[in-house]
């Protein structure tokens, strides 16, 4: 029985070839496929360029009339968004629609007969299948140079509990998790395709898995944005009023991921670099039990120097959940070393936000 299956498998490519199908093996990619996909990719440029916010990103054409799908990015906040097509043409792009939950944006450039991805095609893909990621990560490609292509394997189709910095990932659906490092600066909005160049999803932002503290490489599956794109192209989508967007945000504020400070309430972070003084210590907390007091200045978390309240939050958050935290604080003229328990240790403690509110009433 098994031998016959082997025979069939061996004959299949020949049979397909006889029938005129070019059987591109599913474990490799060919230059022609890559060339075709590259033609549909767009390099985006807009606002930003300061510090960690990149002014460049990626997108791809989804209609012959110039609709470009990308990820909702700070770069789109610019008065002028420039798109550079695969042939080097620079065209101004207009923001048509956004989806703030999936963090998608649809742009449009003027023109027609653009090479584009056909979203109507249903493509099935399974963990283990070869995938290719196309994007202008690190802004390597300029003008008519091809965007970068990376190869990987679909690792999983699963829900992602993730965070971007301290903000929770808003999208609660399933994503395609990729085993190649696709999500890099400038890659958001890139295309994830199968070995035949058919669109599978849109490469997402740089996020960390909230459970493992590791960077996750993922793409939003095509099923999640097919309808949005269809509606916009058909002219049936109402552009979200900017005021309305704000109102929506007020309804569902972005939940800030709670950083477990073990009961330490630092100074309010109002300056550029607020020194990491302890403003108050919650009663019954691990910090209180360890002997920390108000007005202590946190100097070290482990072996890392703490230069601000923001530093303190970031460093203490980096300590793996199951490890104790060693702090060195300055009290008057003395250096005091304390050890705090691992994250989530039982204690009578409230969230930093409510404690801050509480602390306000306590202030003399």
């Amino acid at each position, binding site marked *: 029985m098994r031998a016959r299956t082997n025979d069939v*498998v061996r004959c299949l490519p020949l049979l397909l070839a006889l029938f005129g199908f070019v059987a591109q093996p*599913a474990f490799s990619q060919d230059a022609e496929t890559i060339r075709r996909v590259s033609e549909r990719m767009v390099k985006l440029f807009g606002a930003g360029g300061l510090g960690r916010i990149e002014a460049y990103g990626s997108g791809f054409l989804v209609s012959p009339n110039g609709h470009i799908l990308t990820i909702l990015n700070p770069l789109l906040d610019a008065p002028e968004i420039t798109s550079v097509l695969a042939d080097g043409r620079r065209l101004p792009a207009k923001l048509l629609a956004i989806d703030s939950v999936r963090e998608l944006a649809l742009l449009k450039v003027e023109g027609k007969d653009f090479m584009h991805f056909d979203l109507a095609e249903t493509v099935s893909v399974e963990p283990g299948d070869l995938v290719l990621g196309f994007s202008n990560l*690190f802004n390597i*490609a300029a003008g008519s140079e091809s965007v970068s292509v990376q190869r990987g394997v679909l690792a999983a189709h699963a829900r992602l509990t993730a965070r971007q910095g301290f903000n929770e990932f808003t999208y609660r659906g399933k994503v395609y998790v990729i085993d190649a*490092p696709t999500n890099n600066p400038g890659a958001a909005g890139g295309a994830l395709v199968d070995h035949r160049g058919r669109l599978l999803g849109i490469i997402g932002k*740089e996020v960390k898995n909230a459970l493992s503290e590791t960077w996750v490489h993922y793409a939003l599956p095509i099923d999640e944005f097919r309808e949005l794109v269809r509606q916009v192209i058909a002219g049936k989508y109402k552009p979200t009023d900017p005021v309305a967007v704000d109102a929506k945000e007020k309804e569902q504020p972005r939940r800030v991921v709670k950083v477990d400070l073990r009961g330490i309430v630092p100074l309010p972070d109002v300056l550029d670099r607020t020194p990491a003084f302890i403003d108050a210590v919650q009663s019954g907390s691990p910090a209180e039990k360890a002997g920390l007091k108000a007005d202590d200045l946190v100097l070290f978390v482990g072996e890392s120097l703490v230069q601000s309240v923001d530093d303190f939050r970031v460093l203490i958050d980096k300590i793996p959940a199951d490890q104790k935290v060693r702090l060195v604080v300055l009290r008057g003229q003395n250096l005091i070393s304390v050890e705090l328990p691992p994250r989530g240790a039982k204690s009578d403690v409230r969230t930093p936000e409510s404690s801050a509110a509480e602390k306000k009433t306590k202030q003399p």
Partner: protein
Amino acid sequence: MISALLISVCLAADTPAKITLDPRLAAEEQQRIAVIAKVKPTVVAIFGPGGAGGGSGVLISADGYALSNYHVTSAAGNFMKCGLADGRLYDAVIVGIDPVGDVALIKLFGREDFPHSKLGDSDKLKLGDPLMAMGNPFLLATDFEPTVTFGIASGLHRYQYPAGTLLEYTDCIQTDASINPGNSGGPLFNRDGEVIGINGRGSFEKRGRVNVGVGYAISSNQIKNFLDHLKGGLVIDHATLGATVTTEADGRVVVNEILSSAEAYRRGLRPEDEIVSFAGRPVGSVNQFKNVLGIFPKGWRVDLTYRREQQKTTIKTKLAGVHAAGELLKKPQQPQPPGRPPGPGPKPEKMMAAPPKPKIPEELKKFFEAKEGFANYYFNRTLRDGLLAGLRSRGDFAKRTGAWKLVLVADAGGEVQITIDESSAVWKAGAVQFTARAGEEGRFDPPGTGGLLVAVDHWRRMLIDQNKWFPVCDYAGGFPSTNGELLLGVHAERGGVKTAWLFDRKNGELRGLECLADKDGDPCEIAFGEYQTISGVSLPHRWEISYGGKPAGAYRLRSAEVK
């Protein structure tokens, strides 16, 4: 159908299920394994003499020449220890360096039959082609067996700006094969096991200095252009056109500024001219222009096509050097040394005394000769002497110190007599006579040749005295001839006159001479051919003169008296 499945499941229950591999996949895997087995012995783990630092390299010839990055060898020093996959350590010495292009050539000692890899054609690569990087990332290989990482060509002809250092990666290959600290200098192989790149750089950002899917390799075709230079122990300088270019709003790449002393200017290039193609490659962006420039050594001549008011013109122009002499070795190199693993370092031990200076084996020291402006003068001197010995082999020129009389017949008709002796060179054609003497007299005569008489005078001197008459006489690398093959060059200088001597790499014949009497002008160029014995020595019977990019006379040697 379902019953068949049930039956097969029952059968399978007894024996473990086997995955049926697509035979093409199985074949690809086997091929990859075979290629790795073949090339693994050629990958080098490079260390400083005391075992410090670390990077990678690849052997490219049986006598032990190996390529690496400049930032690896400059950290290791002039003498290195190299480990091969057989677990053995070999001594090595620096040969030549290219600080701007970040390439270095070293030579291993101890065998005459080192396993070596071939340099492939990097221009044949296509996006998506499978690539393998081999080397010693994170210095993991305590037994020197290289680490293999696998990926594809993510981008081609990429330009990477020199960020705070000298290192400019032009026309480089971008790959997602994992390249990490320690991989630097190691080979990037194509599916056939040919070296198509030398790994050396990556894009890193918030995650520290670990690979995030973007690594860069210097292309093998660029390295091939510099290989003759590297073998000559030179500190290589890259090329400049003598002009800057910029992109206009409509996307055209045009000349922004141009030096009036640049050869391109003398050939007619002016500001605002649109660069259409350079060295045969279309120029659609400033990056593409820089990519072409970056792959050539200074002194090479390349084609350039420009457009001015709808009219296209193609010129051949010599590329000048970018840096002043000595500047290349002073500029800072990459800020971080290679091979340092990422993440928090180990806790510093209590202060130890500085480690003892490593001993360099005596037999190795003779293969290194320090000389200002050179990476290793030993190799330069050896190659220079080899080429000049070729002159000696064509006749007892050293004895022919008397006057030389040559009679040349022009293709265009007419006879010319050239007489050269200790004090003068005379050109006589019919009633017309020109004389050149030491000093300024006749320096550019005959008119329209850029100084043929001075050239011929130096030519006689080189044949008689070899390099002794020239205070400066060094091997200069490879230079393309008119038919594209690379000739080997020697550069000499005497009395303010610079000469370039170009030899056939196969038979050692002197194929060309360029004589530059005016440093801001064009040289007199003589192409020699058809060597035959006459008056007891071998002399060229075909002389083609050019000046300023235009022919300035073609002659056959009718008779010669060489006393």
